């Protein structure tokens, strides 16, 4: 890896690190696995980045590598561990907003959403993860290797499923 590649990698981690951690959370059920998968994803990106020649946007490239690493990780686990239980606000607390109660509430909502997304069928989960990160239908289609129409259908189905799953989780 050249000096330029190292700098590019550092920038990628700064720019997409949090998104990659969220993505890992949706693939790996418990906290230790999440950290492990986050590191695996970073390692995969570190290796793949020197081969990136701009065939797609950098964001698409990074998310492709991350998702494919997530797929490999999940398919190599013989039995999926149970999804995270409601953790009463023990999730990673974001460093924004002064009100601790609001922060806890936000972390709790995030954890519930992670658990719900983790229960979606794989193609829907892939689409939803990317949509939640703000990627366009075209970018999602490029990452999944499908059409924009197909992405729209998956997202529509996922929305219904998420409503149901989040509704179930209501106290």
């Amino acid at each position, binding site marked *: 890896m050249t000096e330029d590649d190292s700098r590019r990698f550092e920038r990628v981690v700064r720019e997409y690190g*949090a998104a990659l951690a969220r993505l890992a959370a949706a693939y790996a059920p418990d906290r230790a696995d999440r950290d492990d998968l986050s590191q695996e994803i970073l390692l995969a990106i570190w290796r793949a980045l020197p081969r990136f020649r701009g065939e797609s946007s950098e964001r698409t490239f990074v998310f*492709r590598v991350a998702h494919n*690493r997530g797929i490999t990780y999940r398919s190599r686990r013989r039995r999926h561990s149970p999804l995270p239980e409601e953790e009463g606000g023990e999730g990673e607390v*974001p460093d924004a907003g002064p009100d601790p109660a609001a922060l806890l509430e936000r972390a709790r909502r995030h954890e519930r959403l992670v658990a719900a997304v983790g229960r979606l069928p794989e*193609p829907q989960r892939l689409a939803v993860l990317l949509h939640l990160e703000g990627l366009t239908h075209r970018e999602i289609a490029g*990452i*999944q*290797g499908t059409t924009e129409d197909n992405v729209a259908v998956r997202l529509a189905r996922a929305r219904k499923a998420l409503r149901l799953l989040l509704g179930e989780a209501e106290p």
Partner: protein
Amino acid sequence: MSEQRDEWERWQEDWQGGGAVPDARQLPARRRRERRRMFLAAAAETALALAACGGIAAALVHTPHGFDRWWGIAVLVMLAASWAMATWQRRRVDSLALADAAESFVELARRRCRRQLRAVRFAWLLAALELAFLVPWWIGGFRVHGLRPEWPLTWLAWWIPAAAILGLFAGTLYVRRRVRAELAQLDRLAAALRADPATPDGL
């Protein structure tokens, strides 16, 4: 329509409210660990191949019959070739395809699994051929040379090759179980990814 957008926006906000940037400082240690693991795996594989080849080579030196000798040489060549192929394949890790779209990545991963399963079957065939060559030689050798189990020659000619074949069998059984489970998962995923959008894909 706007209700849908509001819902997604709310979820996006909830989603992006979590996730800490992973600590990239752990990467060098992880890379070192991975290199060490790969080195150990390669060393174990090489030791296994050398032991299996050594057993046959030792037997060949003492084999008087032409047919047995050709059989032994053929097994030896196949063993060496399969070891070289395994080494070459390990270098072609699937990280090359990591930047592909999910659908083609999954297809490549399934192909890799099927290739590994074929390699396992080939290893079993080799082990059977090697045993078919060695067992008569072992029985005859013990009788002719009056070998005792603890002698160094017995270790070289019998215990080590036998342990190598047993190790190969145990190792390939484990690999086969792991790869079959992975392939089943990937098959399900490939089917879901291929599914026509008009048909339900899970929920």
